[in-house]
């Protein structure tokens, strides 16, 4: 096993990119990453996308993206694991480089969600189609059921959920790539249109277009391309029951817990060693569950921890400095890679106003569906 580093990043702005097609945005992000890394050739590529078929009626996008990036001829593979497609694509890229099979691997994620498809319907295909979706549940609905159970069990409050969105919007306000570069308030979240009780529109990540790419290479070659390579310390994934109702405890995201535990083991560090983390806040409650199940705070204490400001930029463990999925936007297939880019920028010291002081070790956690798949990466700047 060789050590693997990230040597280049590129992403589009996230948002409603009316003038750009799925090809345009992927190529834009890909070219930026290639340029950032300064590589001339790409040996292999992975593309994460949840459901380009339902969103733009285009499958086979690994070949299309290689073609339009002008690198057709290389092997290219699409990876799908719902909203964790990007994160799991990175894991495949990592495996290919660490194994010695190839040296320069481009890993990207993309989703074009605003081309007119019924997004609620398309996203719901990440749940159990026959036994959840058939009966009328939606993704906000699934997380709302988690939120209701979490509030009932641990006393998590409506205000604590809102504070996740307030914090993430504050971070996103200084991220030039974010879909919503504006702050919000507790009242702004609580009084927004109800989507699935108790979650309002402002508890939910938006429907977005966007793409993000990174370039991987063996760590021992990384210095050829960059002064600040970021080493991948761990790349671990896990799964859980697809249907929320089949889990013994709906408030525990077991796949997050398992992927986190193996990642900390692989990296040889503990949650307390993480300086900055991007977690999958597709809904406010998801961030609370994620920080608990990753071990940053005890189970049931995530709301209180957030309320105390421990997840803010100057808190104990800054979470979602990019603005998270909530404010930065959530083009589902691209999210896992965009999280990695935020951590790389933090570790390189390039995060501007969002910079976490002395950030050396960072973590990303990306999940699919209501948590049936999760992937955790840990990084250290070299």
């Amino acid at each position, binding site marked *: 096993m060789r050590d693997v580093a990230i040597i280049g990043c590129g992403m589009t702005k996230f948002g409603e990119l009316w003038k750009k097609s799925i090809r345009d945005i992927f190529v834009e992000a890909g070219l930026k990453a290639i340029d950032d890394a300064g590589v001339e050739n790409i040996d292999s590529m992975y593309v994460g996308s949840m459901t380009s078929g339902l969103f733009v009626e285009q499958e086979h996008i690994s070949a299309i993206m290689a073609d339009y990036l002008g690198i057709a001829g290389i092997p290219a593979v699409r990876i799908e694991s719902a909203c964790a497609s990007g994160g799991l694509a990175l894991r495949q890229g990592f495996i290919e480089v660490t194994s010695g099979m190839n040296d320069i691997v481009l890993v990207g994620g993309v989703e074009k969600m605003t081309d007119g498809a019924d997004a609620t319907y398309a996203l719901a295909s990440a749940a159990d189609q026959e*036994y959840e979706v058939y009966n009328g549940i939606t993704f906000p609905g699934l997380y709302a059921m988690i939120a209701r159970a979490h509030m009932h069990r641990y006393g998590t409050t409506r205000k604590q959920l809102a504070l996740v969105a307030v914090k993430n919007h504050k971070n996103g306000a200084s991220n030039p790539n974010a879909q919503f570069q504006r702050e919000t308030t507790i009242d702004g979240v609580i009084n927004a249109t109800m989507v699935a009780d108790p979650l309002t529109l402002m508890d939910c990540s938006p429907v977005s277009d966007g793409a993000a790419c990174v370039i991987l290479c063996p760590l021992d070659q990384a210095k050829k391309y960059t002064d600040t390579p970021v080493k991948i310390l761990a790349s671990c994934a896990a799964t859980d029951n697809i249907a929320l109702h089949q889990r013994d405890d709906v408030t525990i995201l077991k796949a997050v817990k398992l992927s986190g535990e193996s990642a900390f083991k692989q990296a040889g560090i503990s949650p307390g060693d993480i300086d900055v983390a991007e977690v999958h806040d597709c809904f406010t409650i998801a961030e609370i569950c994620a920080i608990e199940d990753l071990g940053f705070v005890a189970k049931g204490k995530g709301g209180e921890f957030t309320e105390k400001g421990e997840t803010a930029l100057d808190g104990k463990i800054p979470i979602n400095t990019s603005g998270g999925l909530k404010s930065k936007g959530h083009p589902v297939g691209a999210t896992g890679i965009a999280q990695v880019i935020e951590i790389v920028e933090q570790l390189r010291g390039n995060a501007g106003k969002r910079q976490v002081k002395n950030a050396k070790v960072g973590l990303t956690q990306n999940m699919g569906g209501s948590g049936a798949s999760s992937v955790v990466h840990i990084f250290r700047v070299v």
Partner: protein
Amino acid sequence: MPSPRYWREIPQRYRLEANKCKKCGKIFFPPRLICCECRGQAFEKIRLSDEGKIITFTVIRVAPQQFATQTPYVVAIVETKDEVRLTTQVADCKPEDVEIGKKVRLVFRKIQEEGKTGILCYGYKAVLV
């Protein structure tokens, strides 16, 4: 809802048919081919109780097109007397009447239809008792 996919699930959706692992007794709804507790592959067919309680719930206010005319509607995770959980709508209720722990009964209802000329799709919904 394409007809074969709908048709295949009829025993579960109409009659709450589940399977019970002959080795460890765990019940699966819908039935599975392998027990995820003990890896057993021998099962007996059972029908779930139509009585249960609400574990958690939400009120769907933004729905996919298929359910758009029904909003707001309640969806809950219900645990039947056999301690099996399923996701189901709670019909004929005001959202404010639904609470975690409340008792429900599963009834037979139309769940969705395949447009104005396609097949009608039935299944279970809960009602408060």
